Structure formats: structure tokens, C-alpha cells
């Protein structure tokens, strides 16, 4: 459905957006481009959606050449941008109608399609309200509905849940999944949320600094990092923790031990089986445990392995200011260079990039504390799922 070979693009400002990209996405696949801000995810999507040009290589979408047959590509794709592309001063229906007209659909077809999509996305009631009264989640749903109006074969979702609260995010995931399973849509999405790539996509490409580091299923990527990690925290008046860590290290089931301040991380083959053994050891050594937890490796760990960076420490949003994103290879470069320089001098300009990320992280860690304080006893299936999804933010791999 999508085939990219040797794709490269350098912005007029000299920023290398994508470097020698090679990628094939099959029909009916949900494919995620995972990477920090400025990794080149959006640039890749802009090229594939004919929004910007490229310097080298070839890109085919739905059987058409992006460079030489842009209108045929446009007719067969839907695109949901990072900034919502809905007009706030129009109603939901008017937005969809205009979109239908731009795709040269007949009036009759537009009307029936609006009915279909609005009920699919649960937007029937607010359909005739101005979009400015919509919530963020509703706007995003409308945006996706608009992108689907002409029945595309592929849709591109650029950070589809950026800036949404957790509830709307999860509900949107369900819609996206449904689009794939029920309508057979091929979906290419970019995200810097690990959970999103993990739970939605069939395959993930980890992209950093314009290059694809690895492509595989989330499961395979995670299983490439062997075993689990068990983290121990000790009560304050415990002394013999060093002996304990030494003793544990001698055991066969423990592959490695790493101290992170007062926390001890144990790398084991099977977390669930090792916990009772570890508890036995702590009892034997009269070490009082405050907290014990274990987690599966997450995509974050995979990410660290392939890029040497954590996704948490988001990089500066380089080369993705809207005017740069917007300016293709033709013009704009000279001017945007100048603006970039001006930007650097004024620290508090245009830095209003929303930080939903942090809220999410906060929510995560608070959630995690409550589940973890069960001191290793209960790990019912649900808790386990939660743990897995929550990731292990405070566990740093060596």
C-alpha cells in the first residue's frame, strides 16, 4: 500500500528531515512511526501526503507515485494533521460538506456519507453546532471523519491523540482500531506515546534523527530485550542491603543487579517466578522491604536500546516549526532561517507546545504508586496489565 525507497529530504534551512528512508507498509496494516519530536515523523508523513516535496528516492502510495501523480495519491488518501484541520467557525456538518466538495463528490453522496460518518463517530448530536464549542476529543473525531469522507484506502494520522486527555485518547484508539478491523483501512500513524504504538499498531518503526532504526512488531521488539525487571525499595533502617544484593547476584535466576540511588533493580528471566524467591532471601537476611515491583520491558526500553535516548527526555522541537513544516523545498527557507535566528534570541516565543505528555506521566506515576504499594503480593491479571501499560518510568536500564 505504501512503498518508500531511499527517501531523503533536507529543508532549505539545512535541517535533514529524513535520511534514506526505506519502508513498505502492507494493505490493512496499522503501522506506527515512533520517535521523539523532531525525529522526522511528520516530515515523512508530509511527503507521503504530497504536502511537501523531497530530494531523493521514490514514494508510492496506493499504487501511485507521490511525485508524478499527486492528484491520484490525494484522491486515495485521508490525512489528519497534528494541528486539527477543522474550521472552528463552521459547524461539524459544514466542515464535512466542504471537504466532500473539495474531493469533488456529488451532493447526494456527501449527504449520505455525512450521515454514515457522524453516526460512526458518535457526532450526530453536535453536528450542527459550531466546532468552536466542541471538546478536543470531538474535534479530533470530526477531523478523522472529514479525512474519511471520500472513502480513502489509506489514512495518515499525525500524532492523533496529541493533547487529548487519557479518556478521550483511549476512546480514540478504539475508533482507530475499529477503522482497521471493520473497514480494512491501512493506517499509518506517528506518535511519541509508547503506549499508543504498543497498543494500536501491528508494526512499529523506531525513528530518530530522520532515520529508521528498526522495524518490527511491538511484541518482537519487546521480547528482544530478555526478561523482566524486579525493583526493590527498602525500609529506612535496613543495613544489610549490600550483602543482600551481592547474595542475589550469585543466584542463577538473577542476571544482573543495578542500584539506582536507594533502589535495587534485579534483571531476571521471569519476574513472577522470582518474586517469591527474592522475598525469601530478604527474610533470610533480615532486610525489611518497603516496596517490590516488577515490570516487563516496554517500548521505551527498546527505544533506548536502538537510539541511546529515552523517549521521556523529549528533544527540542527542531525543524518542525509550522512554517518550516509548511515550506517545502521551494521557498520559505531564507525567511524561515531568519526567523529561526530571531526565535533563538527570544526565549519565550512560540514555545507554547502543549505538554500533555507531562500530565500523562504524572497520572501514570500516581497510578503506579498505588498499585505498587501492594508489596508484591497481589498481581492479579488486571494489575499486571496496568503495570505493563504504565511502563516503568523509574526503572533505568544500564
Amino acid at each position, binding site marked *: 500500500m505504501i512503498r518508500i525507497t531511499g527517501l531523503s529530504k533536507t529543508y532549505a534551512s539545512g535541517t535533514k528531515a529524513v535520511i534514506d528512508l526505506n519502508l513498505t507498509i502492507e494493505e490493512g496494516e496499522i503501522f506506527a512511526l515512533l520517535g521523539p519530536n523532531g525525529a522526522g515523523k511528520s516530515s515523512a508523513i508530509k511527503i507521503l501526503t504530497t504536502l*511537501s516535496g523531497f530530494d531523493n528516492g521514490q514514494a508510492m502510495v496506493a499504487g501511485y507515485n507521490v511525485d508524478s501523480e499527486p492528484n491520484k495519491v490525494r484522491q486515495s488518501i485521508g490525512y489528519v494533521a497534528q494541528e486539527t484541520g477543522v474550521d472552528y467557525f463552521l459547524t461539524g456538518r459544514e466542515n464535512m460538506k466542504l471537504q466532500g466538495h473539495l474531493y469533488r463528490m456529488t451532493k447526494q453522496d456527501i449527504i449520505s456519507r455525512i450521515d454514515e460518518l457522524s453516526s460512526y463517530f458518535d457526532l450526530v448530536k453536535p453536528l450542527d453546532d459550531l466546532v468552536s464549542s466542541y471538546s478536543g476529543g470531538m474535534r479530533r473525531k470530526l477531523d478523522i471523519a472529514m479525512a474519511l469522507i471520500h472513502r480513502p484506502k489509506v489514512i495518515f494520522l499525525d500524532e492523533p491523540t496529541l493533547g487529548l486527555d487519557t479518556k478521550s485518547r483511549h476512546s480514540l484508539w478504539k475508533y482507530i482500531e475499529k477503522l482497521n478491523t471493520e473497514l480494512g483501512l491501512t493506517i499509518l500513524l506517528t506518535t511519541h506515546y509508547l503506549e499508543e504504538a504498543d497498543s494500536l499498531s501491528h508494526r512499529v518503526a523506531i525513528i530518530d534523527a530522520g532515520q529508521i532504526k528498526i522495524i518490527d512488531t511491538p511484541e518482537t521488539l519487546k521480547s528482544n530485550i530478555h526478561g523482566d525487571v524486579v525493583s526493590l525499595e527498602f525500609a529506612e533502617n535496613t543495613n544489610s542491603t549490600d550483602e543482600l544484593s551481592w547474595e542475589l547476584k550469585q543466584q542463577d535466576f538473577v542476571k544482573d543487579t543495578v542500584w539506582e540511588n536507594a533502589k535495587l533493580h534485579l534483571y531476571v528471566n521471569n519476574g513472577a517466578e522470582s518474586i517469591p524467591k527474592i522475598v525469601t532471601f530478604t527474610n533470610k537476611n533480615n532486610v525489611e522491604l518497603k516496596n517490590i515491583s516488577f515490570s516487563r520491558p516496554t517500548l521505551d526500553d527498546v527505544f533506548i536500546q536502538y537510539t541511546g535516548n529515552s523517549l521521556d527526555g523529549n528533544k527540542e522541537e527542531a525543524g518542525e516549526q509550522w512554517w518550516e513544516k509548511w515550506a517545502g523545498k521551494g521557498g520559505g527557507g531564507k*525567511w524561515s532561517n531568519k526567523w529561526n535566528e530571531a526565535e533563538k534570541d527570544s526565549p519565550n516565543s512560540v514555545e507554547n507546545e502543549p505538554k500533555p505528555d507531562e500530565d500523562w506521566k504524572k497520572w501514570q506515576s500516581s497510578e503506579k504508586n498505588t498499585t505498587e504499594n501492594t508489596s508484591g503480593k497481589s498481581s492479579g491479571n488486571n494489575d499486571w496489565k496496568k503495570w505493563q501499560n504504565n511502563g516503568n518510568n523509574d526503572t533505568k536500564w544500564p
Partner: protein
Amino acid sequence: MIADTWHLFNKYMKISMRMPLWSLFSLVQPLLWLFIFGSLFQNFAHLPGFPTDSYIDYFVPGVVIMTVLFGSSWSGVSLLREISAGTVDKMLVSPASRSSIVLSLVLHSAVQVVAQTLIVLLAAWMLGSSLNVNPIYILLAMLVVLLLGVAFAAISNGLAIMLQREEPLIIMGNMMTLPLMFFSTAMVPKQFMPEWIQYIAMINPVEYAVSSVRAVLVGEVDLVVYSSGLIAILVFAIATLAWAISAFKGLRD
């Protein structure tokens, strides 16, 4: 392309109909000028060689053109708003004609400006200016207004694409409109101008607009002056529009 332009134009009209106050807002300035300058320069009309009996009669075409300049040189701001809202990208990923995106914005601005000038004419009439209130002459004047509106909206859109930011666009807009006003016969008859300004006025499109509007609305109708001015503005509008469209296309690929 025509259908795309029509649908997009409709969208912008819908939006401005929903916010009529916003469109009226840019009327405040020309109306103030009409009132203040009309009173301030009242006695100009007594000077020997002044073409009309009352200054306000002379000034009305100037205010009409001023309304056009103030109204349409904002058009690029809407384009920038649309770009940052992501709606332009939405249009660009569709097979819609690229030209129609600029064309619809420019046309919308021009039509808006025609509505505004009609209100200015009404105000001038209420202030007691003796205009040629023949519907045909008003229509002819509006044709000039529409074309000049297209031209300045196109310039504003082209600048918006080049500058890619609102602040410098607004500064450029002001820098452009005010001198063009003063280097024309909007306020002062030609014979009262220093010679060098007269030369500048000869290549000033605003001057052609002012004089052709004046030729049909004030005093004796002079269709020769009108049509030569109209042709000049038509050429100007086509050139600026072509420039804006090519700037818009050039950005992407």
C-alpha cells in the same frame, strides 16, 4: 477550479456573516477619516482652482479607496490563520485546485470591501455630499473597488506567504497603504501637489482607482478617465493575483 473557488468562497462568506461585527470593525477608520478630514479641510474648497464646491464631495472617492486599502490588506492574516490552524493543509491534501485557495480568499476580501464601501457611500450621502447616485455609476465605481480589493488582497496574501508571520505582515500593510494614499489625489488635487509627488502619482495604482471612482461619482461624469483608470487597475489586479498564486504554489514543491 471554479467550483473549488466557489465552495471555499462560500465558506469564508459564511464565516464573515457569522461575525458581522468583525467586518464592520474595519469601517470605523474610514468613517472617522471621512468625518475628521471632511471637517478639517472644509475650507480647501474655497481655494482658487479647487475642482469641487465642497471638500467632502472631493474627498468621498478618496475615503472609498481608503476603505478598500484598509479592508483588503488584512486578507493575508486570514491565510496565516488558516495555515496555522491546519485547514490549508486539509485543502492541500485534497485534489482541490491550488489556485482556488488563494483565489477564494482574495475574492472574499474584495466582496467584503465592496459591501463596506457601500456603507461608506451611504454615510457620505447622509453627511450631505452631492454624489451621482445613479445606480449605473455606483456599479461602475464598485467595479473599480472590487478590482482594487482583489489586487491588495492578493498582495497581502503574497506577502503573507513570503513573510509567514502576522506581525511583519501588518507592518508591511501599513507601510504600503498610507504612502500610496498620500501619493494620490485622494485628499489633495493634483495641482496642489509638489511636482515630484505628481510623478509618483502617475505610477500609483491607487491614484488610478481614486480618479476613476471620482470620474463617475463626483461632478460631471468622465468615462474616458474612468475607463483608462479601470484598465490600469485591471492589469494591476491580474498581475498581483498571478504573483500571489505563484508564490502560494512555489511554497510547496
